[in-house]
């Protein structure tokens, strides 16, 4: 799981907005890995500081997520209720294989 940082940098775009129901939506696009996970840590920290009821990670545009990215999502569950929106089959399978389907539920 130790992604190393001498590779060409990957990019992840992070957008945050509030959904009409009051849930915080964090939209991720690109690839989330150990080279850029800290930017998501910072973005999530500023959101959870406002103690939202619910936080939804919209993964529609995310093509890859490694263990460092998953760790950020898991740590967010310690602060608020987290669910995932529309993860790709690849990511869905990784979450299933690592026993995280219950910890990081996918929106129905």
């Amino acid at each position: 799981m130790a992604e190393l940082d001498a590779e060409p940098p990957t990019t992840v775009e992070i957008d945050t907005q509030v959904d009409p129901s009051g849930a915080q939506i964090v939209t991720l696009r690109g690839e989330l890995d150990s080279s850029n996970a800290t930017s998501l840590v910072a973005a999530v920290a500023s959101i959870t500081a406002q103690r939202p009821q619910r936080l939804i990670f919209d993964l529609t545009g995310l093509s890859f997520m490694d263990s460092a990215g998953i760790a950020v999502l898991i740590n967010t569950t310690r602060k608020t209720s987290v669910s995932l929106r529309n993860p790709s089959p690849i990511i869905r399978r990784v979450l299933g294989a690592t026993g995280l389907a219950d910890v990081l539920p996918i929106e129905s």
Partner: protein
Amino acid sequence: MSSRAVSMGTAGYRDGSTGEPATAEDVVSAIAPDGSARRWSPSRAACLTLAIGLLVTAALALTSLGLYNRNEDRLLGLRARQLGLVLTAAVTSTQTPLASAAELADATGGSPQKFHAFIDSYVGPGRQFASVSLWPLGTSHLAPVVVAGSTPALAALPAQAHALFARGEHTRLLNVTGILGTANPGLGYEFTTPGIRHGFAVYAESPLPKDRRSKLSSDSAFSDLNYALYLGHTRRAGELLVTNIRRFPIGGRQASDVVPFGDTAFTLVVTPNGSLGGTFFESLPWIICGGGVLLTLAAALLTDRLARRRRYAEQLVDVLDRVAAENRDMYTEQRSIAQTLQHALLPDELPELSGMEVGARYVPAASGIDVGGDWYDIVDAGDQQVLVMIGDVSGHGLRAATAMASLRHAALAYAAQDHGPASVLARLSDFVNGDPHEHFATMLCALIDVRAHRLTVASAGHMAPLLIDDAGSDGQFVEITANVPIGVVRNSPYEEVTVSVQPHTTLIAFTDGLVERRGEIIDTGLARLQATATGQRLPLEDLLSMLAHGLASEGHHDDTAIVGIRWQS
């Protein structure tokens, strides 16, 4: 003391082992172009620019000067001819009244009344002649019979008078005496109507300025010229009639013209009184010189600056190359340090087990300097039991490695207390949960009963191991539920399954680096592993080497641990 210890433990290896890494900023500041310590010396290109610029300037200035001189010479020649034309007209206006008077005198037998009536308007101060007189020819005593104006100087010079009038009878021209007198110099000339025997000669004198000096009035069309007028065809000083030039002989730019005057001529010499073509053209060579020198200096300075910038850029490139090389060395060194550290965190050697063959590989990522979080352990649990543990801490770096080390040692401790796989994972989960370093770990724990050919496996979010049959032709993943990884939820239940295996079965446990590829679902990677590992029956070490080599050859991004166990019966 404690801060010293921290420094040695974390960053110390980096600083201590690489000596003094030169950063680009350090070296660049040393060669900065504005460093006052550096002595300024002009670049070769700037000197060349200066030399070429000055040469071009000089050539242009000389060309311009040559053109100016040629133009001035041409203009002066034109002006001399123009002045000559004016003189020619003046000569004609001198000859005409004298010729008319001679004709009148011949017709009237030298009537004084008629002569005076005709000629008086030409004579007197400010008029054309100072004196005009009528001389009968063919007499022994040569003397004027009628005089208008002052007494002619020629009357006192009988020898010259004879010579003059003797010459006059044979020419149709005005005959000129030359300059007469010194106190009141004048010029005398006579006209005799040719073909009349013993007729009358008309003789006139015009005064010359005493010192021969005369100014042209400033509104004259020729005020841009200085002139000297000589009698005759040459410029003899004694024949100088009138001039406004102060210094003789005449030097500098000059032009001359010869104007016929009776039986002799006037020689006109002119010099320019300033620049005829205008002051701009006169100063053009100097303007070119000044402008050219200024432009050349500016160009040389610019060239020098560009040359120094280029030199600076070249030095910068050298420096950057050096820094890049140092960084490469540093990277290689740190990568090697990371790998050394990684190996220090893994078992030194695997236990010798009766009835089991064991092997393991650790393949670092193709690049990068961080310590990975993958680990494995194979422990002889006694009584023909072997505990296999393999895991992967999320993230990388020293924190991940530290988390991995503590997890690994805790797992060994729990295993030593005879806990089964699921129990070990559950206790680890409680031990680690709330780790402030925000790592989680996937882990597989398998207890192998060698004699019973039995395998009890539990997974904390870890990939199931592959079981390969004795022929090496069939491989199946153990069917287990992947429970939640360690470090995610406290008091999480872990399930374990027990499966029986055939003799000579091989178990391959691995971390996700072996099967996970970007843009690919892991089932594809699992199927690839299944196919690769089951093509043929290989010795265990060869099988492990083949799997590790396949990874290394594709430049994988993730550290990977592989453990293999084979029943020898």
